[in-house]
């Protein structure tokens, strides 16, 4: 083989190898970069609460669609609206990309003493249509949170006022009503836009 033929053969071989590598790369499904995906999704524990219209609901409310679930309270002016704003913006961006299905945004109150269904309704509606708000008896909320590894605790501030310490995680619940992934804070719109199609497409 003369040197010229050798170079051509070598270049051809390299091109083939590169092509094969790229084809392999394209077949490998991408992984979520920011969310923690549970290898074995957990069913949402049984509970008996009410939605923002005061209608009774239980764990079956999570079946049938993808849900992004945040635990917060309406008397929280800083981190709670900021998180819901991020979820709403991510949902809007996914809608723009014609992503289907789109997730539902759910707020579970960790302050049922103050969060009446009416208040929760005004709160969730502020962040867009189709959102779900959940409140009800404290012990029933605890059933839901403890089963999902969510922490919250009431903290007196001054006088009769109090704040509620709470986990900042946003949980992804799949259409089977199973907790399947988790976004830890800080919550960033692009992280959701990047990971959600992968998580929701992989079911």
């Amino acid at each position, binding site marked *: 083989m003369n040197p010229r033929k050798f170079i051509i053969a070598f270049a051809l071989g390299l091109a083939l190898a590169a092509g094969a590598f790229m084809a392999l790369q394209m077949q490998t499904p991408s992984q979520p970069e920011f969310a923690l995906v549970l290898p074995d999704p957990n069913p949402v524990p049984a509970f008996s609460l009410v939605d923002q219209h005061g209608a009774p609901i239980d764990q079956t409310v999570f079946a049938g669609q993808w849900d992004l679930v945040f635990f917060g309270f309406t008397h929280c002016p800083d981190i709670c609206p900021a998180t819901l704003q991020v979820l709403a913006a991510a949902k809007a961006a996914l809608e723009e990309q014609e992503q289907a299905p789109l997730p539902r945004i759910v707020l579970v109150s960790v302050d049922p003493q103050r969060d009446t269904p009416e208040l929760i309704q005004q709160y969730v509606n502020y962040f867009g249509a189709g959102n779900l708000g959940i409140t009800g008896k404290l012990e029933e909320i605890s059933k839901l949170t403890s089963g999902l590894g969510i922490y919250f605790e009431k903290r007196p501030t001054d006088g009769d006022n109090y704040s509620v310490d709470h986990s900042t995680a946003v949980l992804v619940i799949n259409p089977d009503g199973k907790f399947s992934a988790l976004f830890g804070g*800080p919550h960033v719109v692009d992280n959701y836009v990047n990971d959600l199609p992968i998580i929701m497409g992989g079911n």
Partner: protein
Amino acid sequence: MRIFILLLALFLSACGAPEPPLVVSQLEISKPMPGMQMSAGYFVITNNTDESTQITSVSSPQFEAVEVHETTISDGVSRMRELEALVVPAQSSVVLERGGKHLMLMRPRDLQDSVTLQFFSEDLPVLSVTYSFSKDERK
């Protein structure tokens, strides 16, 4: 005499306008959401003096109560606490931002298009700042 005036002019221009001891900038207040009794305020406060100072209270004619709070997030848990005072060290700025220190504005009263805040400190004059909501927020 001419030289004196020239020197005086030089001296004055070097000084510029006297710096206010306390400055609040980048003020941003979110309008309470429909039905909600509270809102948050964010800003940068700068102490131009050579002495550390602390903001002991903030008040507003548009809110029944104003408190300085701090959100801290550790181990995935968000906690909010009231700060007794907001310390602003000499020749320094303190940033109040989302997910950190912030003003908690409670129980609005006759809230229209603007919010006036008064900052009370230990030894500096009361600082009054007014924030106007953008047109988008007024609807």
